[in-house]
């Protein structure tokens, strides 16, 4: 499609064989980014898991927003509907229902034991690593050490925080503020006690709301050591062990500074393009440029200079008055 205008040319340039080759190459160069851009967007509808045959059978019922039942023991409503729009945009969009829910669903109504299939993200990702699923190496250990597991929070699993039917990782073209809001929303879904202007346990933190708009909960509530920006640690720390050192983010030599700055700058770049990125760069972190020694020396030199020129000016004024009177 991209090459046709070049190949159909009957101009002297087009009829020149070396030039034609050059144009063909130029056409390819133009076409490749366009093709790869197309492959970065949501998969074509044919590749979507929910459109595969076996999924169609499931979705005959599960597309309904009111698809739910009341659990006999807990008396809570269990939602069984699948938000098709959210699923289409999730990281799992290519999977069909049976890729995860493999057994026990061939009969209707489904047996109640089917719900106890005990799915785990890590297990699934290890078995399907060859199919392109990220390995999630070390995640199981981090998870095992997280406060939710150590303190034995009831019924806690991957799915307490992540909904595999809607989950999508941070990155791409999503604005930073939205990534932060979405990621923090996972925590605040349960920790409703923190939905106050000065959240409980955070009264030591200056401008808590400003922090919450631009920093993820897990930026402070996971270990500082060994961080990889693209793969946040799953070892959620208890309040007492969480990072309360301002300088870990706000000064030089911090473990977080370069990571946070570059991560945010990269996000901004991807989102906005060259000049807009420069204008609306959100990556500056207060304190990142502060250096006590350098600031001290500079302010002293500035103060001495101001004193010096003031004294010089006063001397000139005195000399002028003296000349006037004499």
């Amino acid at each position, binding site marked *: 499609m991209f090459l046709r205008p070049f190949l159909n040319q009957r101009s002297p340039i087009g009829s020149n064989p070396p030039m034609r080759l050059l144009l063909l190459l130029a056409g390819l160069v133009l076409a490749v980014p366009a093709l790869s851009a197309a492959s970065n967007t949501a998969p074509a509808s044919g590749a979507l898991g929910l459109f595969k045959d076996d999924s169609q059978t499931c979705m005959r019922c599960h597309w309904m927003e009111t698809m739910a039942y009341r659990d006999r023991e807990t008396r809570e409503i269990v939602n069984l509907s699948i938000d098709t729009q959210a699923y289409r945009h999730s990281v799992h969009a290519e999977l069909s229902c049976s890729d995860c829910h493999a057994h026990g669903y061939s009969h209707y109504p489904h047996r109640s034991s089917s719900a106890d299939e005990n799915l785990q993200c890590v297990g699934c990702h290890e078995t399907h690593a060859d199919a392109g699923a990220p390995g999630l190496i070390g995640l199981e250990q981090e998870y095992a050490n997280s406060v939710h597991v150590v303190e034995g929070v009831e019924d806690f699993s991957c799915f307490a925080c992540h909904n595999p039917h809607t989950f999508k990782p941070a990155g791409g073209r999503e604005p930073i503020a939205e990534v932060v809001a979405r990621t923090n929303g996972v925590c605040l879904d349960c920790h409703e006690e923190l939905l106050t202007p000065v959240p409980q346990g955070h009264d030591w933190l200056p401008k808590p709301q400003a922090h919450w708009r631009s920093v993820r909960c897990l930026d402070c509530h996971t270990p500082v050591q060994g961080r990889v920006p693209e793969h946040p640690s799953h070892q959620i720390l208890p309040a007492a062990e969480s990072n309360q050192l301002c300088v870990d983010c706000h000064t030089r030599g911090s473990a977080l*500074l*370069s990571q946070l700055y570059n991560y945010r*700058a990269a996000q901004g770049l991807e989102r906005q393009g060259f000049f807009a*990125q420069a*204008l609306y*760069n959100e990556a*500056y972190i207060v304190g*990142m*440029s502060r250096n006590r020694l350098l600031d001290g020396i500079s302010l002293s030199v500035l103060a001495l200079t101001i004193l010096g020129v003031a004294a010089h*000016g006063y001397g000139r004024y005195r000399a002028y008055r003296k000349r006037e009177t004499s």
Partner: protein
Amino acid sequence: MSALYLYPAWLRLWHWLNALLFLTLLVTGLSMHYSLHWLVPFEVAVPVHNTAGMLLTGFWLAFVAGNLWGGNGKHYRIDLRTLPHDLMVQTRYYLHGIFVGAPHPFHVSAENKLNALQTLSYIGVMFGLMPILILSGWSFLFSTALPDTLFGVGTVWIVAMVHLTTSWMLALFLIVHIYIITTGETPTTNLKAMISGWHEGHEDASKP
């Protein structure tokens, strides 16, 4: 005594817009550096600082182009043979002569606007500090394109320190610059010249 048309309109416009950008960058930079929310709110300071920095880059490029091809470069040429003498004379005037009513050792002319000290300091600022400031500023904005560490230290921190140091030095230049312009024939001679273009109280340079 006469008046000399020293600064054409384009030059005065360049100077004052440059000054405005300088002040904007100084105020927003201070606000960002020390988190002075009362001075300029952080969410305003960052885009304004970035915008002014980009515009200042354009102004600096215009300055370089004007010097290379516009004929303004003649004011920034140094004569190494006369420089030590001129520097000494000028320094002695600021330290002594100015207090005893000695005549200005340097006479402004259309061909020679800047005395030896001015020439040296302007060369240092425009061809030394400004390129460093501009490059470090852009490095901040596109730090993802730089290596994570340089000599074992985070690159962003090195960039930050270079930007900070040149900023402080330029703030120092600004203070001295503002004071020095009051040392003309009268305290406001030079300021008025940069506003109207006309240098009043000018002594003819051809006279001894």
